[in-house]
């Protein structure tokens, strides 16, 4: 069968994400390895945590991300009473999420590693078309099995990257964050309805905080490069990290996902200092 609606794409991604989170937790030793059991996904043995709390948390998270990926944002102009923004209406496309990242923090809550799932290649479609099938460009449509094969490859590389990354210190925690596309209004943070809170400054892209309410000053594509502030804890300081390990790009038809691992400077330097000292 083919994966040919946006909703399908999101479904496939969500599925992959939850498997990936479990795998990361296992590979990065966030939880004791004995708390995982081996199951088969994508024809590949992966580890799932057995703790119901962890499982619930992950599935909740993934669901929340899925919701976010399928979210309509046309309410925003109404809320902000900015009719002038109507011209932006068509820019308020469905998928507001640019990236999803699994962030691993040290005991002192310094981000050490980020596993980034870059969704910027997902198609941008008008809100009403979530269930409309894509036009098939050629015979080699986005077939599920093809994606599955590629995800399998990605999963394998993810599982093996554990051996190539430097080990983490004890007592790390993790979290999942998502990066919204530039120009998308931040969802009204209402703790009762939305589970999301803004992340710490150092993981915010620099310009975002500078422009207050988030109406991005920079255009979407024009990358504004500015020298990073000296103090690393400031805005965006922990983005990008010091070392990147590419995992894999999954690309099949409309499905496009790039995965990589970033190791933060704190980790790289800290460890190298520790090892030399």
């Amino acid at each position: 069968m083919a994966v040919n609606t946006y909703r399908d794409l999101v479904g496939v991604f969500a599925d992959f994400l939850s498997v990936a989170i479990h795998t990361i937790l296992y590979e990065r030793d966030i939880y004791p390895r004995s708390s995982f059991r081996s199951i088969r996904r994508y024809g590949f043995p992966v580890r799932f945590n057995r703790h119901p709390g962890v499982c619930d948390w992950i599935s909740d998270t993934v669901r929340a991300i899925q919701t976010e990926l399928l979210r309509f944002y046309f309410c925003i102009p109404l809320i902000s009473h900015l009719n002038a923004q109507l011209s932006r209406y068509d820019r308020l496309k469905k998928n507001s999420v640019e990236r999803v990242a699994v962030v691993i923090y040290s005991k002192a809550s310094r981000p050490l590693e980020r596993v980034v799932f870059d969704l910027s290649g997902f198609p941008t479609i008008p809100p009403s078309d979530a269930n409309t099938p894509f036009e098939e460009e050629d015979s080699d449509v986005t077939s599920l099995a093809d994606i599955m094969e590629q995800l399998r490859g990605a999963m394998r590389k993810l599982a093996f990257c554990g051996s190539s990354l430097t080990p983490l210190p004890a007592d790390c925690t993790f979290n999942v964050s998502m990066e919204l596309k530039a120009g998308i209004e931040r969802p009204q943070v209402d703790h009762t309805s939305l589970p999301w809170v803004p992340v710490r400054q150092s993981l915010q892209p620099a310009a975002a905080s500078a422009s207050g309410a988030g109406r991005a000053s920079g255009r979407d594509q024009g990358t504004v490069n500015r020298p990073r502030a000296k103090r690393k804890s400031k805005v965006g300081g922990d983005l990008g990290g010091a070392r990147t390990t590419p995992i894999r790009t999954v690309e099949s038809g409309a499905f496009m996902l790039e995965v990589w691992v970033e190791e933060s400077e704190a980790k790289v330097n800290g460890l190298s200092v520790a090892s030399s000292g």
Partner: protein
Amino acid sequence: MLKPNAKSSAARKRIENHTFEDEKGEEYEATFGDFSKYYRRKRIKLQNLDAELRSSSSENPRIFRGVIAHVNGYTQPSLNDLHRLIVTHGGAFLKYLDNKTTATHIIASNLTLKKRVEFRNYRVVKPAWVVESVRAGRLLPWDDFRVIGEGRNQKVLGFHNGKITSRTTDSQFGYKEQLSKLRDDGKASFPGHPPTPSNDLHGSESSAVRPGDLLASDIRGSSGGKRALVGAIGPFYGSSGPPLANPHSTAASGLNDRRQLDEVPSGEDTPPLIDSVSLESESELSIAESRLEGAPPDNLEIEDVGWELSEHNTPVARNSDEDSQSQHNESTKTLNPQSPKRAEGSHPPDSLTSERPMLTAEEHNAALLADPRIRNTSVLNPDFLRQYYSESRLHHLSNWKAELKSQLQQLTAAKSSSQKARHKCPPNSRRYIFHVDFDSFFAAVSLKNHPELKDKPVVVAHGSGPGSEIASCNYPARKFGVKNGMWMKQAQRMCPDLKVLPYDFQAYEEASHLFYSAILSIDGVVQGVSIDEALIDVSALCLDAGGVNGRAVCEDSTRREQAKADKVAEHLRNEIREKTGCEVSVGIGGNILLAKVALRKAKPAGQYQIKPEEVLDFIGNLTVQDLPGVAYSIGAKLEDIGVEFVKDIHSISRERLTSALGPKTGEKLWDYSRGIDRTEVGDTVVRKSVSADVNWGVRFENQKQAEDFICSLSGELHRRLDAQKVKGRRLTVKIMRRAADAPLDPPKHLGHGKCDVFNRSVVLGVATSAPDVLGREAISMLRSFGISPGELRGIGMQMTKLEPLEGPRDGRTESRQKILQFEVKGRPKEELEDPIVDDIESPQRKIAQRPHPAALTTMPKGSHSASEQKLLNTLGTQFIIPSQIDPSVVAELPEEIRSKIAGSGVILRESTPASPQLDQEALEALPPDIREEVLAFYRPRSPPPPSIPRDQTLTPPPLKGGNGNVLKSDPKKPRASAKKNTVGLSVPKRGKGEGNPTLTQSAFIRPGSSGGKDIAGSESDMDLRNFDDGEEDVDPEFLAALPDDIRRELLEESRRERLKRHALGLDTYSIPHRSMTPSPPPEERRIRLPPRPPKPTFTAQKLSTLPELKKAISAWHEEFRDEGPYEEDVEALNKYLRRVACEERDMAKAVTLVRWLGWIVDEAQGDGNDDHEKSSPAGKDAWKRALESIQQAIQSAVKDRGLGEVAELAPRRKNRSSEEKSGEECDGARTRLLELVQRQRWVETREK
């Protein structure tokens, strides 16, 4: 279908009887330490699970009942889904395969090589079998889904509707294959949805029973291979038509049969039939039953109708079949309870079953052979073989032909060895080849004694009886449609007053000798094709007449040459007519192919010349089967890809052709279609096989006789092997068995009739020709066929992998030790197929199998003689050509004379002060810049056109379009090795021909690098030895005279220049245009996704996939291994990788490529010590630097994306200073991050 062995049936019973009540069984007790007990219990538990699952899904048809499946390896759909599908449909599943026999089916999409061997005798099926079976609602034959035993593109015989069909399995390996099948599936394997597939998949089907299907499948199931039956049912379906889909209308349409059905015991009486059918149909029945449970009651009646129908129709079918066929009809067995077994697999019905009502084949033979006269003529006569071979006309002919041919060959060889040297034509010159052939040789010669019949239709055959075969017929007879190889009976029908003449071998032989003597009197290279056919290369003769050297294009001289060719042909024809009184035809063309084609037009009694300008038109309008070497088998393949005429090939790419026909044939045809044929006249082919076949009079009463006969046949084979002075290593036995539908008595008395042919071969450890060994092997192979002796109609033994016989002639003393063979294998070329085979059914086949001399591509023979170089006046002008000519004078000359001068081996360039005349010391004394100037002056201004060989013995211009056959002395060496071994290999060889032993030649730029695949050519060393004087830039003699350092400098420079000229593919880096593809009008609203920006591609070939890129990079490194890459190339790669990382957003790919390059460079560093001691350290350093720059490019690209540097691009650099990173910039204004509130919750969870 299933023939479960004891083990699997026991296992099946066990599993079927397995029930699960509760968790109180023994298996749920605790076990400690006892692994085997643990494991046994685990298995029971697994079966418990399955049993539960099975019982909970009773609504599914139990199609897999009796199947014990095991899944091996990765499959799509997954193991879990397959497991569930099988279990819910009544099958059993084995998680662990303790012994292979337990499982009835092993499911795998791909097997490792070892497992392929291991599982060869088991039913290994593809996962699709399960899915398709479930979808079809019945157990599909597993054969169609087999994994093992189907080679790619291997043709498989199928048994379909009573016809043997042949189809090609074009299975692809890997998961892609399964994708196409799964694409339209239900949610069978969608991981987002927990597998509920079976219900999904089946719900619809099991609720709506489609009686049409049911009928069809049941009947098919019960009748199996009863071909007549299916055929008979067909019309019935046709008449009732589409309504079959609807149960009611089927019932209605079935009503007319009701009447008859009532007489037949219905319903209850079917069981015997059911019992008799095999397991497969049983399981189908069970499906039918289980379906019917839920179906409306009238379906039940339809079911009955179906069964009745099948029974009722059977006799009808049989009768009609009987009418149409002879009495040995097997469909009499349609009601035989055993018959479904026959349907199994695709092998033709077992002979045993068809014998029952009749005499067995053995009995029949015994009856036949009771007549002593017949007995004596059959193989049972101990003298049979001797007689057979002494009387067989074809045997006589072929032997005689072989003899004649070897005689001729010796004659021509003796003559042409001198000829060749004398008439060695300059390469690439125009050629004139004659193909001379008698017109209906036998008939014409026989007619000489009967001149009164000249204008009457006449044939030559051994008798006028209807069973004799026409060996040759004259042209008046051909007008009636009579052809060679036709039966007399048929011919006489076409032409009642046909005159039959007997063979007159004496006269033929005489005529043939006269024919050849006439041909040999012509001054040319002769190759005998057969007794009445020969090829002559008269190029030298014609070129002399033309006046120029045969390369230059000059209308006048070309015309003269052609006129000369025509004249020679005319003369030849007249001479032969005078000598023999028979007509010959001559085809003239630029190569053997064209000559042969022209001959067709020339016949009868004429001559035709294909001129160069009309080649394409002429060839293009032929059908492909007109080409030599192409007959129905290749023709059919070509038809598949849409080629009927030769010109159709022009529109097909060479790749397509080679993939359809195989590399050799494809290449050959591609060339042929353009009128290219590289075969040279006079090339001989070494005999490859020796065989002895008998297919007349083969009638046995018992196995003993058959085996005795094989022994005597192997004696005959031994004699033939000895006569050829060879022994062989591979023995092939060919068995002809009476075809199942052929009558016991073939049309030709004691002939073989219609047969199935089986081949089997064995490779013997040691080459042998010992009759007892051959006999033993052949008998064991014959036994392994398991063919009853009465069915045998022909036996052949063939020996291949021949080796020349050494030592004593009896063939018994084979030594295992290899002996250097100094003897040249100069066996006369013979037809591969033994002409004894009396192959009357398909006279074309011989043509198809005969390796046409033109088909065997060989390289031009390199024989030179020094005489060529003497400045004799051999060129047909009365002027002596001076050895040094002023080029300006030459330029003024007319074209003809000019080319003559060029052809005469005079080196024009030497007319400038020859470089060796330069004073070495004076040169050295010059300041570098002036020296440079001087050298530049001596360098020719442009490379001379390839058609002017500067020095014939040195550089034959490479043949156009590949076969970069540069090392003349060793034509078969591939280019690659030639290059590597330049030092060791070619120096001495060249040294022989030329007094300049330090210089060797190799093509600098690959001759065939038109595709640009090679990134560039490179030279492996500065050393002069490795350098190449094939490079026209620098005069070798001049070079040799220079002191070392200057020489090096000079070479270096000229090479650089050369490289520049042959621009690399690398700098043609291109960005493809965005192409807007028009979209088909969608019937359903669909979103048109904005097209993805096209992937950046690398080099002119637009590489973008990883394997391609890796290959390109490896090639690049290989080419420039010693001198390091060019900066532009490195830059291009940098740019590309950066785009991959940034635009294509595939960092992983970019990084993989860099690592790949790094690895290659590392490797090169490593093996520098032994293999390439000459490779310069400079090259290594350059590569290292390039690698670093590329690594840096990647890092900066990644940095541009706002990411940290990539780890493990190279060995990890931990302490890379952090100040570098202070300049790192972050990607501003793009995103904002949100984090989960849930984090708090999670922390709590964790603390629990």
